[in-house]
């Protein structure tokens, strides 16, 4: 009977030993900078907390942007994300507890994050919002917003679709509760000059999304364009169009390798690029400027990173950059 006892002792001791061995690395070094003091870049720590789901290609580029900015400027950047607003709020609280020198947040669900963001601002930590919730950013006390105005981007997409002759557009929303995505669809409707039907899918279940799009196309043969709001969803939309035997053209928001090869192959008509790499890179620069020099960028207006239209004309140059994970 000694064997189970020894096994149990080992199971308990192993993590404790691991903890002891890794103490030197110890991240107990807190930045401890207040916004007013001119801090040395070597001491700065910024936290990026977004609502991206694990493994989402779009947010990986944002993460690359933020981490590259950290490397280029000699700043420690910690990236965390969670799609659930309550857990995202808890991550923001964790960053505040660690006394970081700046926080970058994406406000997909502003109401849910309001308390945590205001607590960060009250603790003297400068906050910059990115990607979503630009209209609530200043209200919460953020010092700037970096993103794409979703309505403007949607309108750009709608106009491009109108130019290519589309009349009945299906807009695929992949993140429940994200007001930015709904703004894109209504913007597209404005740019197109006609009503745009919406379809709700889940970014975490791409095969399910594919069948949902295919069945919509099969059920309604007059749909001649599918507008997706995420590059991963665009890839399955192309498959869905083939599955349904439809003639609809596919347009995408946001780039990834599949979208780029899709444009090169002619499966995807164009992509609206919000250059999310900048949404990771620029806030780090802006927070550094604020920490060292109390500078703000934007003059109270959002710093716009898009829309940039990528189509057959410019796709080849962009292709190389995208495979590096920066576009």
């Amino acid at each position: 009977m000694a064997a189970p006892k020894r096994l149990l002792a080992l199971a308990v001791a192993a993590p404790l030993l691991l903890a002891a061995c890794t103490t030197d690395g110890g991240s107990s070094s807190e930045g401890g900078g207040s916004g007013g003091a001119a801090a040395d870049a070597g001491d700065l720590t910024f936290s990026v907390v977004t609502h991206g789901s694990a493994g989402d290609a779009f947010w990986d580029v944002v993460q690359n942007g933020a981490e590259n900015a950290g490397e280029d400027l000699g700043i420690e950047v910690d990236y965390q994300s969670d799609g659930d607003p309550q857990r995202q709020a808890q991550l923001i609280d964790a960053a505040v507890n660690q006394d970081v020198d700046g926080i970058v947040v994406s406000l997909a669900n502003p109401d849910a994050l309001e308390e945590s963001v205001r607590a960060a601002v009250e603790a003297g930590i400068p906050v910059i919002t990115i990607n979503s919730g630009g209209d609530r950013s200043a209200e919460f006390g953020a010092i700037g917003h970096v993103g794409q105005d979703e309505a403007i981007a949607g309108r750009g997409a709608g106009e491009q679709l109108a130019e290519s002759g589309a009349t009945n557009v299906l807009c695929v929303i992949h993140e429940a509760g994200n007001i930015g995505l709904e703004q894109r669809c209504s913007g597209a409707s404005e740019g197109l000059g006609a009503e745009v039907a919406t379809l709700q899918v889940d970014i975490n279940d791409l095969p399910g999304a594919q069948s949902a799009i295919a069945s919509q196309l099969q059920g309604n043969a007059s749909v001649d364009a599918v507008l997706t709001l995420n590059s991963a969803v665009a890839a399955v939309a192309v498959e869905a169009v083939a599955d349904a035997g439809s003639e609809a053209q596919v347009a995408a928001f946001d780039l990834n390798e599949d979208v780029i090869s899709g444009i090169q192959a002619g499966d995807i008509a164009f992509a609206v690029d919000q250059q999310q790499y900048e949404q990771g890179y620029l806030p780090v620069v802006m927070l550094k400027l604020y920490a060292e020099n109390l500078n703000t960028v934007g003059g109270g207006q959002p710093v716009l990173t898009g829309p940039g239209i990528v189509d057959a004309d410019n796709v080849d140059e962009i292709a190389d950059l995208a495979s590096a994970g920066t576009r």
Partner: protein
Amino acid sequence: MAAPGPLRRLLVKPELGALVGAVVVFAFFAVQSATFRSARGVANWLDPASTLGIMAVAVALLMIGGHFDLSAGVMTGTTALTVGVVATQFRQNLWVAIGVALLVALAIGFLNGWLVTRTGLPSFIITLGTFLMLQGLNLGLTKLFTDTVTVSGIDDAPGYAVAEWIFASRVEILGAELRVAVLWWLLFTALATWVLLRTRFGNWVFATGGDEVAARNVGVPARRTTIALFMTTAAAAWFVGTTLAVRLTSVQANTGIGQELIYIVAAVIGGCLLTGGFGSAVGASLGALIFGMTQLGIPYLRWDADWFYFFLGAMLLLAVVANRLVRRYAEAARR
């Protein structure tokens, strides 16, 4: 035959494995991060532990009674959305909305329990069906009432101030600002433990989970017990859903989906057997505590969040293997 010594009696307790696990996980993170063990850090990770813990305790009670509830996660979304829709779309006092949400939850819980006891089908299947239906209803009805997939503006409803005080306020304890959900969690754990170990109903739960036929033969009202247990998980989902709605003031239609497995994992880490008849509410709470510490310990260590699920899976396997070893050792040594 000598009476079992105190150590043996301790080792047989279902929550011991979870306690050891919680201590190890705490030590692991606390040693490496000063913020993790600070008052603010503790308040931070107690928060996810509390909302998870309230559900884990109820789910543990049900598992001891021999059943699963896969609709528990999505039901927190259903109740939160009900509170939101009734308060904002039907413009009722928030307390009316909370009352309606409770009735809805109890009705769904009753439906689950009634279907399971009537048909004799595995609760896994029945509640899987309920889960899928609720997932669709959450999305469909939200879009029907609000034209979007979020219900917001809950803080504009009359009665919000008192609701906030009860469900979403903060309490200062020993220098840490805890969310009140932590106190509710401790209260529910104590209540569930008392019911399980000190009341006749608790006996019925263990009996029904251990062997339903034998239980019925000795006069245990197994059917009523099962239905009551399903209504308990539904009521817990109502409490957590209301807490979410009041705290966040805005609820997304996909809230809670996927959480049901985590409740079961927390209960299993806490010593509940999948076959029923054995387990503890305190153990489930300790399992939820391990989750909370891990969920926020990883950001405190600045690790990549992708490792979270790997860590959780490893913890689960470690916990169940350890539980099994300890119990086998303790029970064999008694002879």
